[in-house]
C-alpha cells in the first residue's frame, strides 16, 4: 500500500497547549502530508510538547490536532493504534532481553504473541541487532539502545512513526546507519515519519517537509523538495565586461534576471533552458564569466532566516 502523499497526516487547527499557567504552543495551524516531516527548533520551542500532544500525553487547551483525520483528544486510542514512538531519552526495561522487550511492546500494540515474536525478530535483524537480541537491554551500548528503541517503534507496523532525536549520542558510523534505516523505512512508502532533531543535516537528509518552531509558534514550514527544485533554477554569475544590455539579452532567453552591479547578475532559469546557453551568449557578447554559482539555500539558511523573522504562528 502506497502512502497517498496528498492526504494530510497531521493537521493543526489553532492548537494551544498549556502546561500549568505557561502557554507552550500558541495557536499552531498547519497541515503536513510529507512522507518524512522534520520538526526543528531551538530548545524550548515546543517540539517535544507538540509530539507529546500528538501522542495524547498533553491535552490541548484549545484548538485541535488531528492525525490521519482522527482528533488526538477524542480518538486518542485510534490515533495511538496508528503510531510508533521512539522517545529521545532512554526508555526500556533494563533487566529484560531485547527480544522479549520488543515482543511485549508489539503485544501491547495488539499483535498476537506468535506474530509479535516474529515481528520482534524481524525488527532486530532490520536494525542490525540480530546478534544481541537475547541480551538484556541494560547491557547494550548507547547506539544499540537507540536501535532497540527504533525496533520497538516499528515492530507493530505503524502508519506514522515519531522519532525524537533518533541520532542522539550516536558515533558517526552509527548515525549514518540510523539515517540509512530511516531513509529505508521512508522509501518503503508504507508509513510517514516525523523526525524531531537538533541536527539540521539529519533532517535535510531524511525529510521532504520541515516545520520550524520558535517560542511555541510556527516560525517556518517548507517543502524541502520544492525548495531544492527551485534552487536548481537559481543562478548567480560574476562577469567581466558585462553591462545591462547583456542582462537584456539574457532575459530574451526567457530568464528573469537582475543586474547587481560590478558585473554580478542574479537570474532564474526557465524550465528546459540549459546553462550552456548562458555561456554561449557570453561568448558571443565577449563577456567573461568568472564565476557561476547555483543558489544553495540550505536548510540551515531557512532555519536561520526563520529564527530571525518574527514568528506568526501559522503556516
Amino acid at each position: 500500500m502506497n502512502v497517498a502523499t496528498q492526504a494530510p497526516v497531521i493537521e493543526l487547527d489553532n492548537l494551544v497547549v498549556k502546561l500549568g499557567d505557561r502557554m507552550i504552543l500558541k495557536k499552531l495551524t498547519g497541515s503536513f502530508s510529507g512522507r518524512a516531516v522534520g520538526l526543528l527548533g531551538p530548545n524550548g520551542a515546543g517540539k517535544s510538547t507538540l509530539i507529546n500532544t500528538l501522542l495524547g500525553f498533553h491535552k490541548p487547551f484549545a484548538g485541535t490536532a488531528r492525525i490521519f483525520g482522527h482528533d488526538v483528544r477524542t480518538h486518542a486510542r485510534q490515533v495511538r493504534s496508528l503510531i510508533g514512538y521512539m522517545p529521545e531519552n532512554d526508555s526500556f526495561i533494563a533487566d529484560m532481553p531485547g527480544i522479549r522487550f520488543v515482543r511485549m511492546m508489539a503485544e501491547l500494540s495488539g499483535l498476537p504473541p506468535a506474530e509479535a515474536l516474529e515481528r520482534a525478530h524481524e525488527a532486530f535483524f532490520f536494525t542490525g541487532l540480530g546478534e544481541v537480541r537475547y541480551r538484556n537491554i541494560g547491557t547494550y551500548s548507547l547506539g544499540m539502545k537507540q536501535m532497540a528503541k527504533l525496533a520497538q517503534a516499528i515492530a507493530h507496523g505503524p502508519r506514522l512513526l515519531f522519532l525524537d532525536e533518533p541520532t542522539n549520542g550516536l558515533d558517526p558510523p552509527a548515525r549514518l546507519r540510523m539515517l540509512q534505516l530511516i531513509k529505508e523505512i521512508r522509501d518503503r512508502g508504507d508509513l510517514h515519519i516525523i523526525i524531531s532533531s537538533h541536527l539540521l543535516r539529519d533532517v535535510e537528509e531524511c525529510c521532504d517537509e520541515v516545520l520550524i518552531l520558535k517560542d511555541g509558534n510556527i516560525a517556518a514550514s517548507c517543502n524541502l523538495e520544492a525548495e531544492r527544485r527551485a534552487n536548481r533554477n537559481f543562478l548567480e554569475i560574476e562577469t567581466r565586461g558585462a553591462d545591462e544590455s547583456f542582462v537584456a539579452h539574457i532575459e530574451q532567453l526567457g530568464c528573469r534576471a537582475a543586474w547587481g552591479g560590478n558585473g554580478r547578475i542574479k537570474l532564474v532559469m526557465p524550465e528546459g533552458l540549459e546553462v550552456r546557453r548562458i555561456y554561449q551568449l557570453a561568448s558571443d557578447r565577449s563577456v567573461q564569466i568568472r564565476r557561476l554559482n547555483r543558489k544553495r539555500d540550505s536548510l540551515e539558511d531557512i532555519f536561520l532566516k526563520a529564527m530571525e523573522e518574527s514568528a506568526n504562528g501559522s503556516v
Partner: protein
Amino acid sequence: MAVYKKTYRSYEGRMTPEWARFFVLTRYAWEDLQRRRFFTLFFLGTLIWPLICALGIYVRHNLSALELMGIRAASMVQIDSSFFLTFLGVQCMFAFFLNSFIGPGLVSPDLSNNALPLYLSRPFSRTEYVLGRMSMLLILLSLMTWIPGEFLFGLQSYLEGWDWFKANAGLAWGLFAGSGVWIVFLALLSLSVSAWVKWKPVAGGLLFGLFFVAAGFGQAINAVLRTKWGNLINISNLVGSIWVSLFNKPLESGSGAVFFRIARGEEIPVWMCWVSLALICLFCLYLLGRKIRGVEVSR
C-alpha cells in the same frame, strides 16, 4: 520461525481484542516471577496451612480416623465462623508478606527506566496499565486466600451436608468479600508505594512501615488521648472489623481473625472502617494517577 528479509514491512495481520491487552502485562510479570526461586518456595509454603485446615476438616468427619488417633470428636476445633476467620487471618498475613516481596517491583522498574511513554504511546491507557499490574497481585493473592478458603468451605459443606451449607452460606461470601477487601487494598497500596519509591527494598520496607508503624501510632493515640479513634489508622484493626461484620459476627465479640484482632472495648463502627479504608484506597489511586503518566510535567 521464519525471519523475514532484513527490511521493514508493515503489519496487516489479525489483532488481539482491546479489552484483553492489559493481560499482556500480567502474563509477563507472572513469567518474571516464576524465575524467582524464593517466590516459588514461599508461594508453595503458603498452601501448607490450607492443607492442614483441609486435613482437620476431613479428620473431624472421619470417626475411624479420630478413634485411631485417640481423639474425641468434641475436643476437635469447631468448623464455624471463627475457624474460617482464623484461616483467613493467617492466609491474609502470608498474602501481605508476599505482596511486600512482589508489589514494589511492579511499577518502579518502569518508572526508573522511563518506560511509561512506551506503554502509553500505544493503544493502552493508564487505567489498563494499572489494571495489568494489579491483576498480577489480584490473581496471586486470590490463589492464597479466598480460593483455598472456598475450597475448605466446599469440603466442609460436602462432609457436613446441605443443612450446614444453607445455615452457613454467609461464610462463603465472607471469605470472598473479606479476602477481596484485603487484596484490593494491598494491591493498591503496594502499587502506589512502588510508583513513588523507586528502590525496591525501601518500597518493601515502607509497606511494612505503613502497616506496623501506623498500628503503633494508632495505639499511641489511643493511650495518650484515652480514646479508641486511633484505630482508624490501624489497618489491621480496620480490616478485622470489616471481616467480623462480613462473617455476621457481633463486633462486640472481640475476636476477629488472628493478626487482625480487635481489642475488646476499642471497636469502632464498621461504616467508619469502610470509609477509612476507602479513603486510603482513593489516596492510593490519586498517587498512582500522579505518577502513571506518559510524561511528567514540571510546572
